[in-house]
């Protein structure tokens, strides 16, 4: 059964008011280390979540047993939960039908890739890394999402995605690159590996630097991850309502350099397009920051009802099991600038550091947008406007508003940086990001040398 059929069947198994969300995945991931595949995983699953409504009481059950007996049992468990739940006068009700936007995001060729193809494309990366051992993966998959509800919603979307990721590394050096697209044909594993290997070759003999504030160039990989962590607390409605968000009390104010504009745009074909959210509400483009001015956050029906000020869902309801975090931007897009290259950005910085990617970020103070983490797989000094000698991995503790408060420039080109780590059910999403040059990136410690 496809996702629409699963959702429809689950809804039919329920009595009364209900909503079914079906998630079907067929994927393969060829993971490699030291230039050989060591964890090849093929997944084939179908999961359906049923939300049963009894007045203002709701109960949820999930299963991957999608035959008649399994769905009947699912309906019984969801109904039991609903009948146990206390009344919730803030429950906004199930979404009403609305025509979702037409988006791309599904590619027949990508959907057709099998284990042999995934292994072949992993091998292409391994071979292209040359003498530098390769660690990473090639993955492709097809994901179907469908929502059916007793209010008349029946929407479905097929999504494909492919990612090649390579850490090229040995004892002394390491470099990183990745490509993600909904068309596997737009992912070139060999190119990814060459980029990672070339970066690695420049990292041998790394030096330490003193902690302090430096001008910095962040590659798209680094900028995307940092903004995604910031967004978790600051660009969702729940963070705003709970005063965790940096945007709390600042909407309409200049919070970043005027070169910074950030949107959430699931309709952008350069990303991983989505048509509707996990309540079946059509996706909207949401301006989060325009020319440095805080404009808004993303909403779902629950938070919109809680706000009670007439705001509507923007189509950002997450899966039910993730609603503790409220609606989140799954398609962040940072507007490009005018710089032709990262070298040009280094020229704008003059003296500072160059950062390829980050590792293990942690939010220290959500309301202040302070995030700590390490740089990894390609950190360099910038001297006299040129990318110079390699540096060890550096600990940073930055206030994102400070980092984005004085921006020298951004590249014209943007990259789609994969954000999913493939936990649970596959749901492809990522961040469209350029490289960025900032006046201040705060280094608070030094770590180990590059390399494994």
């Amino acid at each position, binding site marked *: 059964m496809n996702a629409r059929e699963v959702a429809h069947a689950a809804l039919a198994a329920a009595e009364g008011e209900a909503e079914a969300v079906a998630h079907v995945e067929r994927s393969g991931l060829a993971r490699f280390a030291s230039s050989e595949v060591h964890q090849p995983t093929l997944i084939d699953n179908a999961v359906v979540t049923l939300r049963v409504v009894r007045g203002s009481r709701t109960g949820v059950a999930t299963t991957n047993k999608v035959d008649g007996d399994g769905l009947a049992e699912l309906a019984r468990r969801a109904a039991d939960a609903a009948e146990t739940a206390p009344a919730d006068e803030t429950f906004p009700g199930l979404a009403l039908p609305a025509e979702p936007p037409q988006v791309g995001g599904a590619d027949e060729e990508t959907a057709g890739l099998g284990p042999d193809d995934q292994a072949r494309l992993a091998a292409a990366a*391994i071979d292209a890394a040359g003498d530098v051992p390769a*660690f990473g993966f090639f993955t492709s998959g097809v994901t179907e999402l469908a929502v059916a509800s007793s209010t008349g919603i029946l929407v479905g979307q097929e999504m494909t995605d492919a990612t090649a990721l390579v850490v090229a590394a040995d004892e002394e050096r390491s470099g990183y690159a990745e490509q993600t697209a909904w068309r596997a044909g737009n992912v070139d594993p060999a190119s990814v590996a060459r980029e990672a290997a070339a970066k690695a070759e420049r990292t041998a003999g790394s030096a330490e630097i003193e902690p302090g*504030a430096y001008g910095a160039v962040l590659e798209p990989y680094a900028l995307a991850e940092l903004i995604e962590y910031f967004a978790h607390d600051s660009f969702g409605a729940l963070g705003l309502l709970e005063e965790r968000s940096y945007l709390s009390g600042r909407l309409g104010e200049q919070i970043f350099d005027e070169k910074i504009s950030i949107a959430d745009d699931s309709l952008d074909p350069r990303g991983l397009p989505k048509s509707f959210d996990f309540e079946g509400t059509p996706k909207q483009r949401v301006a989060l920051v325009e020319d440095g001015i805080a404009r808004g956050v993303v909403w779902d029906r629950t938070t919109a009802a809680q706000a009670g000020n007439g705001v509507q869902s923007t189509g950002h309801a997450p899966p039910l099991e993730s609603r503790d975090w409220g609606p989140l931007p799954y398609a962040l897009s940072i507007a490009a600038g005018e710089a032709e290259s990262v070298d040009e950005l280094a020229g704008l910085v003059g003296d500072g550091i160059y950062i390829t990617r980050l590792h*293990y970020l942690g939010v220290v103070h959500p309301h202040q947008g302070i995030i700590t983490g390490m740089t990894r797989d390609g950190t360099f000094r910038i001297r006299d406007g040129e990318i110079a000698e390699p540096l060890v991995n550096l600990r940073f503790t930055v206030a994102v508003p400070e980092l984005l408060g004085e921006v020298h420039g951004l590249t014209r080109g943007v990259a789609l940086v994969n954000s999913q780590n493939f936990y649970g059910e596959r749901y492809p999403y990522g961040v469209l990001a350029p490289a960025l040059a900032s006046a201040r990136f705060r280094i608070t410690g030094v770590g180990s040398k590059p390399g494994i």
Partner: protein
Amino acid sequence: MRDLCAAAIDAATGAGAEYADARVVLKRTQLVATKNGRVERLGDSESEGIGVRVLVAGAWGFACDRRLSADGARDAALRACAFARAAPGNHSRALTPINPQTGSHRSAFEQDPFEVPLGDKVDLCLRADEALAGPDVVVRQTMVRAQREHKLLLTSEGTEVEQELVECGGGVDCAAARDGVFQLRSYPSAHVGSSCQSGWEYVVGLDLVGEAPRVTEQAAALLQADPCPSAITTVVLDADQVALQVHESVGHPTELDRVYGTEASYAGTSFLKPHDLGSLRYGSELMNITADATTRGGLGSFAFDDEGVPAARTAVVEDGRLTGFLTSRETAARLGSGHGGSMRADGWNRMPLVRMTNLHLEPGEGTLDDLLGDVDDGVYMETNRSWSIDDKRLNFQFGTQVAWEIKGGKLGKMLRDATYTGITPVFWGSLDAVAGRESWRLYGLTNCGKGQPGQSAHVSHGAAPARFRNVQIGVKT
């Protein structure tokens, strides 16, 4: 279930696999969560399927199928073999030998958490939620959870083991905000509470309702507290934060797959090398770390791991010296030491990985007051708030929800926004006291991430408050 696993093994070996294992897993989870007086989640989830892992000409392959049918089992086996056959690389893998194991195991509990009516769970959460109310409180959250995992493992070497593991847990969180200051307190642990391989009696024993007012009081008090200063000083950590310190700076770096680089593309590697075994000075002589898959109540407890290796208790660090790694059969064979026993998979549709079982800092002597009493000037930190560590598990920075200054051996004023940072062996080298058995607690976390595709492991750590000298607190700039 047994027939399905046998069919998968037969199909795999018939397709050329020199080794195969098949796991059928049935998992059910239940979660009740409230926020600000309303039930936010009331869910009941189940998942079942079969995962088949094969070695074909030295190459691993893994495939799975949600269908618990002969067709599903065979299809998974054949796809796993095809993937292994296609895998690039110069494969040459050996597994450390084990005797075929047979047996069954069921974790101990008094009250089956799935027999507790959902309504009782909702009532408990709402009462705890109400008890969290107070001035300046902007978010009150409560959660209780339960999980039952029933799994059967068959291998082509003749192992056949069946296990049922039951766990449950809970926790409360309270966030307070005023004038742009946002503070959080949690009990009994941050990040989705604490869980235990136990029956509902564990949740009852947490006394979420009784503890809630203290949590709220401290969250509100933090709004008035001074920020923790930046200094090099003596730090005393509560048992919960010590547990996280063990997890991040001892557990992960001693996973032998990380040492060999197989997590390099995601979770990272390790500052340890295989030849460090037996010689590397990890910390002071007070540092004794044990991996124990037999700990009663531990989330990493079992009778057999997901390769069928019997549970064991082994020393990882003894008197401050590295004496053991966490291993799989493959990594143990490569090292020439150990027998595996740390392999676990996140359900039926993930390949087993080297995971922590239960990793403990063994207790020392005395009480928390004894630890504080020997500090003229320092900081006591409690309950993790933020965590970050580098890919080799050397440079870390952790933050806690609350801290107090220590003056003249006594706790002084409360401090907010406390962080400390260090380099793993240097930090553990500064350990100069661990509190005794009476202060030792078991903490169970359910969000340990690793692998591609990602897997979450459930892990427990036993720890007591501990004291570290000459630690950088605050941010060095």
